Structures are given as C-alpha cells and as structure tokens.
C-alpha cells in the first residue's frame, strides 16, 4: 500500500473510532448474550432494547450497515480497506453488529452486479436500513448437494411468473419479508441452463413456511411451500434461465461469510483449555488428562493455522494477486474445526456435557451440548464437505472429472 493511501486510511480509522465512541450506545458495546440479542430488522423488527434500535438507525444513516455499497443504494461507498478498518474498530470497541442481514451479506453484492437499476433502487436502500428481511430459497428436498437439480417451477403467465414447489433449509423463512429464490424456468434445458433467480414477497398468496426441528432442538430453518404464487416478471434478477451464474456468485459470498463468521465466533468462545482446567484439573499446571490435552493443543494449533491462512489469503488478494479457490478450503476446514471443537468440549465436560433440558446442568453446559449437536450440520449446510472436496480437487488441483 502506498504511504499516501496508508495515511488516508489512518485518518479514516481515527474519525471512525471517534464516531463509534460517540454514537455506539454503551449497552451495544457488551457481548450479545444469545441469539435473542440479534437484530434482523424487517417489516416488523424486533429489538432486544431501545439502544439496539437507536444503534441500527445511526449506523444505517451513515451507510455503515452496508459499508461498501454505493451511497445511492444506502451504503457508504467505502473501499475494502476502509471497510476492514470499520470492522476492526467496531471489534476493538466491542460493538454489537447493528444489523444481521442475508440481504446485506448475500443478496446485495449480486444485485449490485446483476440487478437492474430499478431493482437496485427498489431493494437495496431499504435492505441497508434493515427494513426488508430476506431469506434464501435455494435448497430443495430432492436436490441436496446437487443444488442445480432443483424442481421448483416458475411459469411465465402474462407479466408474472407462477411459482409451484418447495424449498427447505430456508433460514427464518417464517420471519422473512422477501425471499431470493432459484426456480426452474426451462425443464427441457440442461439442468444448469433452465434456472432463474427470482425475488418473492413472502406475503404473496400461496406462500407458507414451517420451522424444522433439528437434533439440537429448535432451529431458524424452515420448509417453504409455493402453491401457485404469482411473482411479477420485474422481480427476475439477471436473464431468464441465466440464474445459475447469479446463484454461484451468491454462493461464493455465502461461503466467505460462513468462514468469516466461524473465525469471528472462535475468538468469542472461552478457550477449550480454560474449560478443561475446570473440569479435568491440573497437575503442576499441566492438564491432568494427557490425551485430551494433546487433542486440545492440536485443535488450538489447527485453529491458529486456519486463521493464519485466512489472513494470508486476504493479504494475497489485497496485494492484487489472484486468490485460489480458497473459499472451499475455508468452508471445509472451518466447519470441520468447529465440529472438532465442540466434540472436545463435550468430552471435556463429560457427563455434564450430555445433559438434556431438565437435568441439573448449567445453562453454559446445556448451550455447549446444543452447540455440539448443531455443529454436526456445519459440514453439510452451505455446500457439504464432500462438495468442497470435489471443488478443491477439480478447480484447485485440476484433477480430471
């Protein structure tokens, strides 16, 4: 980075820090205690407290809920480096995320690339302000890892598409206002060439959603059903039957998001060794269980190496060199690490790590049990580990089909 840009960036850092210190309510500088503290916005937004509402309003007014988006679409027009600084300064202050939004994280970037001017103007500003809550209609029961074999049909009828079918694994479909959705618009074409990308208002007649219970208990995931749902043709993103390109671009954003959130999540949890000291005790300062200790150290090292690799990848990109297809590696390794972490946590807690609700275990123990069970899905959702391995083998290593 040239010195001038670096100087600008340090200036930006200073002003950002000052603004955050002045405007982030103190209650928003404490760690979120649970998912109930998350702010997802939407038509009927739920805030854990008044400060959370104020914090969202202030951030949205700055365009900092979607910092790299252009100002005219509700963003702040920041460079990647500036956005990173904003992120770092928020972490430094311990600011909670003002808005969680699939619209900002996943839809926004592809709408900026593939959307019409009208679509951008219609959807991006209210999304950045947290007024539209989006959900993602990708997976289907019979498709699974073979996403492109999806069956939900959309048939053009006048100036509307009529949508029939079923989605599954749609996070918060029961609470979302709109869905970005893959539909089949040409059943005769090869499977990747008959798919389109539609935006669907979840209030439309014929849409319904039902939450899915997981092995870990209640979940944000839903099944969503479409029964003759009419969707205005203006809500098609990209070209008719050209949705697969949009879908793939969005998946890249999702994968990057998952590995980033995983990385962030690690920092927040109590280190395994600290939990282990409480449950297993120490001899002369050394964890009493040599075998668990070895596995904890392995997990700690692997987590360090993974973080270093994420950093190297980001630096490579910033240095203007082409990155590899590393998102697959990060998705794969990050989720396997997470599974390993929670398995270890449960083994460390022993009998107290496998208690069910109603047992005399603590809230933390119960949470770790749920997190352990929930983590089994990490290597399946968002592209299974097997799919990531296929991608690495083919695109990174160039192994033949």
């Amino acid at each position, binding site marked *: 980075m040239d010195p001038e840009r670096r100087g600008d960036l340090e200036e930006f850092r200073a002003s950002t820090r000052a603004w955050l210190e002045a405007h982030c309510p103190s209650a928003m500088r404490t760690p979120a205690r649970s998912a109930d503290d998350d702010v997802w916005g939407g038509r009927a937004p739920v805030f854990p407290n008044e400060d959370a509402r104020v914090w969202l309003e202030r951030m949205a007014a700055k365009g900092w809920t979607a910092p790299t988006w252009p100002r005219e679409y509700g963003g702040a027009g920041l460079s990647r480096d500036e956005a990173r600084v904003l992120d770092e300064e928020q972490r430094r202050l311990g600011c909670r995320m003002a808005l969680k939004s699939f619209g900002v994280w996943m839809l926004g970037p592809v709408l900026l690339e593939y959307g019409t001017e009208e679509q951008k103007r219609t959807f991006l500003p209210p999304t950045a302000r947290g007024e539209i809550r989006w959900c993602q209609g990708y997976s289907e029961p019979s498709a699974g890892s073979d996403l492109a074999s999806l069956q939900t049909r959309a048939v053009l009828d006048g100036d509307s598409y009529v949508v029939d079918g079923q989605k599954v694994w749609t996070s918060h479909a029961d609470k979302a206002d709109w869905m970005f959705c893959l539909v089949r618009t040409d059943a005769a074409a090869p499977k990747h060439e008959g798919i389109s990308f539609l935006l669907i208002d979840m209030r439309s007649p014929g849409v319904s959603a039902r939450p*899915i219970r997981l092995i870990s208990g209640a979940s944000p995931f839903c099944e969503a059903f479409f029964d003759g749902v009419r969707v205005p043709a203006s809500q098609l993103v990209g070209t008719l039957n050209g949705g697969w390109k949009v879908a793939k671009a969005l998946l890249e954003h999702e994968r990057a998001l998952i590995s980033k959130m995983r990385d962030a999540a690690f920092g927040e949890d109590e280190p395994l060794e600290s939990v282990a000291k409480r449950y297993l005790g120490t001899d002369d300062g050394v964890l009493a269980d040599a075998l*668990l200790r070895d596995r904890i150290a392995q997990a700690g090292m692997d987590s360090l190496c993974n973080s270093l690799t994420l950093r190297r990848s980001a630096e490579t990109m910033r240095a203007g060199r082409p990155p590899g297809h590393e998102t697959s590696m990060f998705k794969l390794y990050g989720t396997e690490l997470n599974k390993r972490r929670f398995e270890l946590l449960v083994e460390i807690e022993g*009998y107290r790590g496998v208690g069910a609700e109603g047992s005399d275990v603590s809230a933390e123990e119960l949470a770790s049990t749920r997190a352990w069970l929930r983590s089994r899905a990490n290597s399946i959702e968002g592209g299974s580990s097997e799919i990531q391995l296929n991608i690495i083998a083919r695109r990174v290593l160039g192994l033949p089909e």
Partner: protein
Amino acid sequence: MSAGNTPVSLVLTEDQESIRRVARDYVQRSMPTTHLRALRDADDALGYAPACWSELAGLGVAGMVFPESVGGVGLGFAELGVVLEECGRTLAPTPIVSTVVLAGGAIALGGSEAQRQQWLPGVCAGERVLALAHDEGTRHARYRVATRAEPVAGGFRITGEKTFVLDGHGAEALVVVARVDGAVGDRTGLALFVVPASSPGVAVTRTPTVDSRNVARVRFDGVVVGVDAALGAPGDAADVLDRVLDRGAIALGAEMLGGALEAFERTVAYLKTRKQFGVPIGSFQALKHRAAQLFCEVELSRSVVLAALRAIDAGGPDVPVLAAAAKARTSDTFVRVAAEAIQMHGGIGVTDELDIGLFYKRAKVAAMTLGDGAHHRDRFARLHGY
C-alpha cells in the same frame, strides 16, 4: 486366546439364533424407535416403559443370566448379549444393564445366599429395578470413590454423592460403592451396600440425558444401613466391583454393537436409494470407501463383543482384557458410524424427524457410560502390565 487353545466358538448356536428371532420380533414390534420418541416427548420420568420391561421379563430376559435357584433361566451372557444387540438396534430403553448386569450382578457375585434370595427373584420376575451407584465425578473412574461408609453400632453410615446412576431415579434399591478405608483412587477399602431408595437420607434427582434416557444424581446424607446390607466383607469389594464393571462394559458394548449395526445398515440402504447428480450417492467412490472402512470397524466390534460375552460364560481369565477391548471399540465405532451416518444422510440427517440423530446421541452418551475408549485403552494397557 493363544493358538493351540480350543476357545469357545464365536458363531451363534441355533438356540441363540432363535433367541435373537424372539427378541427381534418383540423389540421391533413393541419398542421401535418411536417408542423412545414417545417416552422423550412425554418427558417420561422413568425413561423406560415398565410394561415393556414386564413383557421382556416374561420372555426370560430379566432372569436370563441368573440360575434357576433364584428364579432365573440359567442361560448366559452370550444369550443376553443377543437381546441387548436387538435392543440397541431400536435404541430400546430397558433396565437390563442397570438392574440385571450391574446391581443384580453385584448381588449375584458378591452377596450371600440370603441376599441373593432376597433380591434376585424379584429382578428375574421383572418386578424389582435396582441400580449401581458408583461414579462420582463427570466421568467414569473405577476406584475414584470418595463416598465414605463409617462404622456405627450395628452397621454403617454412608455419606457421599453419586452421579450418572443408570436408572437410579426409578430403582427400588441402590447398590452403593463406598469406601470404608483408604484414599480416593485406592483399589483397597471399597465396600458394596444394598440401600433401599426409601432409606432416610437418600435423595435421588433425575438427570435426563441428551439420548432421551434418564440417569440420576443420588446423595447419601448420613444414610444408616445394617451390617446385613453389605455385599461381602466391607473393604474387600474391589474384586466383585471389577467383575461387575467388566460385565457392564461388555453388556453395554453389546447394546452399542446393535446401535452401530443399525445405523450402518440404514446408511448403506440410504446410499443405495438416495440420488444426487442423477445417480445413487452410493456410487460415489469416496462414500463407498468410507462405508467399506466402517464395515471393517463394525465387523471387528462384532467379533470382540461376541468373544467377550462368551468369555464371561466360560469364566475365563481373559474377561477383563476383552471387556476393555469391547467397550473401547464399540464406543469408538458407534460414535464414528453414527457421525458418518449423519454426514452421509446430509441435511435430513440433522433433523429430529430422522432417527439417525438419535443414534448419534445415544452413541455419545453410551460411549461415556462405564468408560470411553481412552479409559478402556488405559485399562487394557494396565492389564497388560504397561
């Protein structure tokens, strides 16, 4: 196990095969996985169905390993193992391990004839549920007993707290492991007492587990028992405790073998039917190889469980080694198979709707119960003198 011996066979006899058919018929009909789900969803206080236990007892299961002199059937662990394997296939909760193998085993192996006559006929009839109160911390440890039994006039006063007592919340009486001498961790100084759950000073708390079973925390707050409550001579219980825990590990291993077999077979069936990219996912070589590796692990588990069950019946000196090997292997194999079963089932594998998650939860809890893989490798090493 050395060459040149003619050890007991590892192949099921025809009688054992018919016991399997009877057990399978009953379990599949009366205690399929929906049975466990119903108990779970009702937050059942016992965690198993007494009616089913009565029926199983009627089939001879409760008395299978006890002699006819106490109302038993006079068969062996080879036969009981077959039943446990079938119960494992549907995750059927029963008090077999707690009542028959652990507490009943302690009375049978350590009790006087009077004590045997007092308790075992009821066990064989399926009328009495007992539990072994042994562990105290967050994990199984054979001699880590801090619970004290202090001599008082005509008996002992017991003080301590026990955790993870299998079926302890529904047991009529508890066989308590307490210490009359020595320090925590010592093999010497242990004693076993049969304590009615209704005794003053006994406090039982149900602690449900994630596999939808129930274990208990049991406090003994100066509980006074008579000398006749002791199984054998107080202070010398380690031999009986070792035999009981070895049998428990083997019996639980048999149940886990059933669970591993079922989870594996369901997964192989799914690999053949589920299609992705236009072909059955079982045609993908990476999944094939993983399935083939699991097959080997399951087959090795089967062999060691069969050998361990038969070794109990043969009264061989190799029971402790085989118990350690059987429990270590079934623990590791069941958890691995169930985890792979989830991964290979994909999204539906993590939904509560599918049974696969129930197998995974059971695998993890059963693996911890009576010692996990690492615990039993340690024991295996000690038994081999290293």
